[in-house]
């Protein structure tokens, strides 16, 4: 199966490329990239005035399967991902059961084999049942193919347990992804602590609950000399702490989510539960710091933290509503609208955050359009605008904070493993 993509602006920072050229895909791989390619192909795509970039690699996705198929399934999430230009996802292990042992990895792998429409990589749990007590058998998890370990949704509170996990992860050459939150400091909060929690009459989630735990996680990672990745950072102090740690040569990477640079805490004032996530939307100065961190390279990656929830769990009193928002179908466009269009990142910079760096952090051979690379490609109309509509989501859940927003950047084609997996 040959696909010829003609006249697109190819943005491929892994090969230091940003120019109009043609790409030939053959047998699942990139066969050629050149100024002009003329050959017979089963499918020819005219990409004039479009961006052609490596498929997005979203390293923070809650597929909800196994266990909560009412919220989302591997099938619906990966279809939604493709519509968002995402060709690879990292599945978070906080399912029911948690992905904390070889058997459960096998179970998830069997579902993926049957239903996944793009590449699904697996993160295993750090501790058994994500209880923060007993470190999982990391060697066995590694053998089953997990790429990283995380108790996402919770932090491993006990220093000694986390340190042991870091040492085990190092032995198994597995990345630890930290959900950095001290729940004794964020206890029962629903929105950012400060004027927002005060105005709304809700308990607040302090910045300290995040950055103090970021500090600890980095300190213990250093002690174990095991690289760590900090998930979904939202506040200025976290950015600053990571910036300093990296200057000292500590191996720490991090990601943020689109809502942390596209929305500030004011979005939640109307008690819209689609604006409720953890960490919460922060102050404008935090939004600025996140953007700055993206611009200067402190923040390596953008990941959706796609967290689907049913209407039953969202259309209730604000305090009782679940934390989390969906993001697969909007993350690319939100990033284009908020970062490229506003001059925070150029296209190459954006592709690094969405594809090159996640591949590097996870150690997967993707994120490149070089000859011989996997043909995971997304073709985007960069200037085209669209309005996010609730009933247009492919995701099973509809809890998006961007409903009603007009965004720039439309995914026209997603080529995954050498096949056109999505086209508009």
């Amino acid at each position: 199966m040959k696909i010829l993509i003609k006249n697109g602006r190819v943005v491929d920072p892994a090969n230091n490329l940003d120019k109009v050229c043609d790409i030939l895909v053959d047998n699942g791989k990139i066969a050629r990239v050149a100024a002009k390619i003329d050959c017979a192909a089963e499918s020819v795509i005219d990409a004039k005035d479009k961006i052609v970039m490596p498929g997005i690699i979203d390293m923070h996705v809650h597929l909800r399967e196994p266990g909560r198929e009412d919220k989302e399934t591997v099938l619906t999430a990966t279809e939604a991902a493709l519509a968002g230009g995402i060709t690879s996802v990292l599945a978070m292990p906080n399912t029911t059961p948690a992905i904390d042992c070889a058997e459960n990895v096998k179970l998830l792998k069997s579902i993926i084999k049957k239903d996944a429409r793009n590449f699904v990589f697996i993160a295993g749990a750090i501790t058994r049942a994500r209880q923060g007590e007993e470190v999982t058998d990391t060697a066995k998890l590694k053998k089953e193919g997990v790429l990283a370990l995380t108790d996402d949704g919770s932090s491993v509170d006990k220093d000694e347990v986390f340190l042991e996990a870091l040492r085990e992860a190092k032995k198994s050459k597995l990345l630890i992804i930290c959900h950095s939150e001290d729940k004794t400091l964020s206890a029962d909060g629903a929105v950012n602590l400060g004027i927002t929690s005060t105005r709304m009459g809700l308990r607040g989630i302090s910045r300290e609950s995040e950055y103090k735990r970021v500090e600890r996680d980095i300190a213990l990672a250093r002690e174990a000399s095991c690289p760590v990745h900090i998930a979904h950072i939202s506040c200025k102090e976290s950015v600053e702490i990571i910036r300093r740690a990296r200057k000292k040569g500590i191996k720490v990477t991090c990601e943020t989510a689109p809502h942390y640079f596209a929305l500030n805490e004011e979005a939640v004032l109307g008690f819209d539960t689609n604006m409720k996530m953890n960490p919460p939307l922060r102050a404008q100065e935090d939004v600025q710091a996140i953007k700055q961190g993206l611009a200067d390279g402190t923040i390596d990656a953008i990941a959706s933290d796609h967290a689907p929830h049913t209407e039953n769990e969202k259309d209730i009193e604000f305090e009782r509503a679940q934390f989390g928002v969906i993001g697969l179908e909007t993350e690319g466009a939100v990033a284009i609208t908020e970062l490229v269009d506003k001059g925070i990142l150029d296209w190459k910079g954006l592709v690094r955050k969405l594809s090159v760096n996640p591949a590097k952090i996870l150690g997967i051979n993707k994120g490149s359009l070089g000859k011989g690379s996997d043909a995971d490609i997304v073709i985007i109309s960069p200037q085209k605008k669209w309005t996010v509509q609730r009933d247009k989501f492919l995701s099973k859940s509809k809890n998006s904070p961007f409903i009603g927003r007009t965004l720039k950047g439309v995914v026209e084609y997603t080529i995954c493993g050498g096949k056109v997996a999505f086209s508009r």
Partner: protein
Amino acid sequence: MIKWQRKDLVGLEDLSKEEIELILSTAESFKEVSARAIKKVPALRGKTVVNLFYEPSTRTRVSFEVAAKRLSADVINISTETSSVKKGETLIDTGKNIQALNADIIVIRHNSSGAAAMLARNVDISVVNAGDGWHEHPTQALLDIFTLKEKLGRIKGLNVSIVGDIAHSRVARSNIWGLTKLGAKVTVCAPKVLIPPGIEEMGVVVTDNIDEALKKADAVNILRMQFERDEGTAFPEQLEYFKAFGVTRERLQKAKKDIVVMHPGPLNRGVEISSEVADGTNSVILEQVTNGIAVRMAVLFLVAQGRDKK
């Protein structure tokens, strides 16, 4: 004068100065009704008002009930003890069921901040917030402001101090929005642990010194200390609180002679207010109760009109 356009009253934060003034002037015209021999006008005849109360409340519910009845509305009271809420029905479903009865106004009291806003978004009929969590209690603040204006003739330029558990008080929040929009200078006074973070950004001055709060005040609004909410977090003891923050005759002697003393009730005598002050000549506590009827009549009347316009 502007016209009322809203079908709901969720909070004073959302309202403009003009809208607040419209409620107050409407209340003025309704106040006289309660002084008549026949205390009834047909303004809401044929309308149904449902008091949907998820928290125990006597004074607010009764006040709304009296207000609705003086407007000739039919009133139904639903409290959690007798409703299907206990069977797990969601707030939205309950609201839609009430709407399906062709009721016109839901007056909601709920322990969760934002509950009134959520209900208002999900039904077409009017929703009046009778207190949601720690968020807002707009009709209480409106009756406080109404009483103050009646006593002192104006709001603009007044120094008003609010004393008590500001952090957990919806009365404080609604008063702050209402008073500051009308041009009063608001001071909040509480032990530091009961001052919520960032409250200065709502345009108030913060102090933990009661004498400081009383010194320049034209009025003091004393909040009920809600010891039943005590979550074990650095909450002061009752007697300790009275010594440090209780409004007493001695303390008032250092304040302006004609300072207006308000309290939303119910009173904790000897905790946040001494009996002498509560029953003294500066106190307008019972006038607040009377004015509550007029203010709630005005609110019910206006939201019903607002809905008819939609």
